[in-house]
């Protein structure tokens, strides 16, 4: 038995019929085909599934989809504005922070939430801010440098980095098949 919820995902109004026991992670990946958000530990320890919910970074595996009713959510797919990459994305490319890349969506989203909160963080604040995002390629040094670089360039430049609701389209049943991206 699904429940219909309304929310904003990456600036776009969405209406989703979600199973009440499905996590926000499952809803994003399986119902909305936003597979940039990754699934790993499912217990809130690895950070691969991090998204921003109403301005706060959240492990989407620890939140039910229905709890996102009315929320504004940003996933990795929503960081860039059209063709313009988020400064963090540019910096990650530049420092070589993305190796296998599997943890990178979570790292980027956590870093975005951090910079939205603290535009010019210290190294310690960055390390603490990303402590919940595991990287087994262990490219931590290059990730930390990328966040520093992005902060130095653009930290306070964009006061409203994630514009909210624009349009609404009703779709998605739990097992909707979605065309390849």
């Amino acid at each position, binding site marked *: 038995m699904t429940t219909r919820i309304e929310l904003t995902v990456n600036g776009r109004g969405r209406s989703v019929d979600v199973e009440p026991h499905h996590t926000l992670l499952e809803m994003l990946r399986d119902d909305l085909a936003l597979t940039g958000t990754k699934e790993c530990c499912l217990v809130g*320890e690895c950070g691969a599934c991090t998204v921003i919910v109403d301005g706060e970074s959240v492990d989407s595996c620890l939140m039910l989809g229905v709890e996102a009713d009315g929320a504004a959510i940003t996933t990795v797919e929503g960081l860039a504005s059209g063709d313009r990459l988020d400064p963090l994305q540019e910096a990650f490319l530049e420092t070589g922070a993305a190796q296998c890349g599997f943890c990178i969506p979570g790292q980027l989203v956590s870093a975005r939430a951090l910079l939205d909160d603290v535009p010019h963080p210290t190294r310690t604040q960055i390390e603490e801010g990303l402590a919940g995002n595991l990287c087994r390629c262990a490219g931590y040094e290059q990730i930390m440098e990328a966040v520093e670089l992005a902060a130095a360039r653009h930290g306070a430049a964009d006061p409203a980095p994630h514009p909210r609701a624009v349009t609404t389209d009703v779709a998605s049943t739990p097992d909707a098949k979605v065309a390849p991206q």
Partner: protein
Amino acid sequence: MSDVVGTRAPRVGGLDRVTGRQAYVADIPLDDVLHVKLVTLPVARARIGAIDDAAACAVPGVQLVMSARDLPSPMPRFGPQRRDRPVIATGETKYHGDPVAAVAAETKDAAEEAAALVKVAYEELPPAFTLETALATDAPLVQDPSLRPDDPHANTNVLHEHRHVWGDIEAAEREPGLVVVEGSYQFPMVTQFAIEPHAFMAAPDGDGIAIWSAIQHPNWLQRVMAELLKLPLSKVRVHAPDPGGAFGGKQHAKYEPLLAFMALATGRPVRLVLTLEETFQAVRRGAAQVHVRTGFHPDGALVFRDVEANYQIGAYADIADRTVAKGSYTSMGPYVCPSARIVARSVLSHTVPSTAFRGFGNPQQIWAVESNMNEAARVLGIDPLELRLKNLAKPGDAFIPGDTPADGDWAVAVRRAAEMIDWGSPTQPGRGRGIAVGLKSGPTTGLSYSTVRLLVDGSVVVYAGTSDMGQGARTIFAQIAADELGTPLEWVTVVSGDTAVVPYDQQTSASRSSVFMGNAVLRACRDIQAKVRAMAADLEGIDEAGITVERGQVRIDERTIPIADVVKRGLGRLGGEIIGIGEMRKDAEPDHPLGGTAAFYEFNCTAVEVEVDRETGDISIPKYVTVSDVGKALNPNQVRGQDEGAAVMGLGHTLMEHYIWDDAGRIRNLGAIDYRIPTSMDLPADMDSDIVENEDGPGPYGAKGMSEGALLPVSPAVAAAVTDATGAVIRDLPMSPERVWQALQELDSAEPAS
């Protein structure tokens, strides 16, 4: 002319990685797919009784419950070294997590619900899940002896005993005045913990099968599937999207065969994404106990080394026995020593099958032998840096008899590391320094093919079957092609990960790809250059002797023309393209103990400064230095990423990682809560990665493989620093706060305060 080799060229696939568009196996949608869930038992070893799937089949959406009875008899088996692994457990489970059945259903929810409803009758049997129990004379046998009828060890749990011997160790031991230093070291079971849990899909594909797997060796998997399903290779198509981290754990087939049988049974695509817990029960590194005895002249010169090691591998061989062979083979390290006797056994146990993991059997040995060197330095009263420099092989030294001579000037790396850590200068109170080196034999055989197409507009498509699992292989190949063919980097596309499209590559392992596939790509580009040269001669109506083609340029007498211009003219109105093929092959040498000499050696020197909290036993690292001999850094950004990544991964098994077992052989710390890996909070305060580039490797432009070196000497370097800081000698990993604290307590009680 572009010139991108040696620059920090942006990663191919980087944009997809930072935008969330990179499609890993679990991100790929297949129409009409069934979701698979494994059924396992809450025990290590058990005799499997009746399997009642009535309740499971009653769950709406369930299409198949498969167990051993649904598979061909005898049970098909596979494995890279021995065909000992069944498609699904048959008769007996061999380890905690060994699947006995699998459910395929229309939804993930239905598959999970049904899997929990499969009733499996079983009788728990005593497991051998430690080295001691596995080696006991009355140990339960992990493998049915009939699986290896001609093997003298068949009635024991020793899968294989490797012996590497040179010189006359008995005579050496009798030399008068020797200083002999010995000790036993323990290395725990740890797991690869790629952030992408293993994922597999299979689907009927015409009259064949298609497999999707985050696999390092797509062609090897293709061969395994063809053999199991009795299909020609051409009817097995392996899609191998970039793995989300692999580290050796994704080299060989795991559940792909099971998925294939399920796809054929249902006639539909099937998909299995493991949980992290299930991934822990699928792959790990072999644990080891290593006893090392080394004899020195009082001046520090090595005289003999005697090593006896038992590696605890798992229930099936996978590639584990090879890790034991290769890891122990270089137990003498990068030193010249007149005699050595190295014995290493692969010991089967009722545990998760161990497999390749960055370092491939070497970190276990190096933990022991380099710690032994540091202990020897103290006994001898010689600086550990000097002791190493004194014994280090010089370029060209045949330091392992019958193998590739030393292929680097390793002393340069050692001196560099020492300099960077301020070796010899006083440390602050409570701190200490340590140094260690690591050496690993690179690939012993190999075969990589590449096809490169130079298109009419000058853009380039490179086909290279290396799995790009984070090391950035495609970037390297694109850089090579861009330089050799004079094409902008962004005009090069590298295609990998599809055995129906991309030529054969033996494997992505042993830090080989820049060398093997890199050379294949280079040669394919040079094949194109040769064709362009012939084309230019034809166009100009002159002899080829007057034309040279290199680095994207055609030189005719005094004139220089870009390759693309010649090609455009040469191809004419019909367009078309120029196709080049390249190959790098290193054949097996049957008489060699490893089946082949080292294509290159990976060498790293690591030096650390630590601070030990005497109250808690916690180790912090104010400064960390790693120096690898890389031959040539084709992409310094990526070299740094691999070097630092290997170092931090090494800090994981050094400081915190290990499987914890209960009394029944079950893993107690499955998953990310109770199994800790390094986070951004565990980094050295100051970390510095440097390289030695003498362009003396066999790869393109003098490159060597380098992705494992920095992991090799982490543990002994840190342990030596802890000893330097506190006096405590630690011989068991991980050096958790508890273990360090206990060592400090023992030290305090042994030496009452004066």
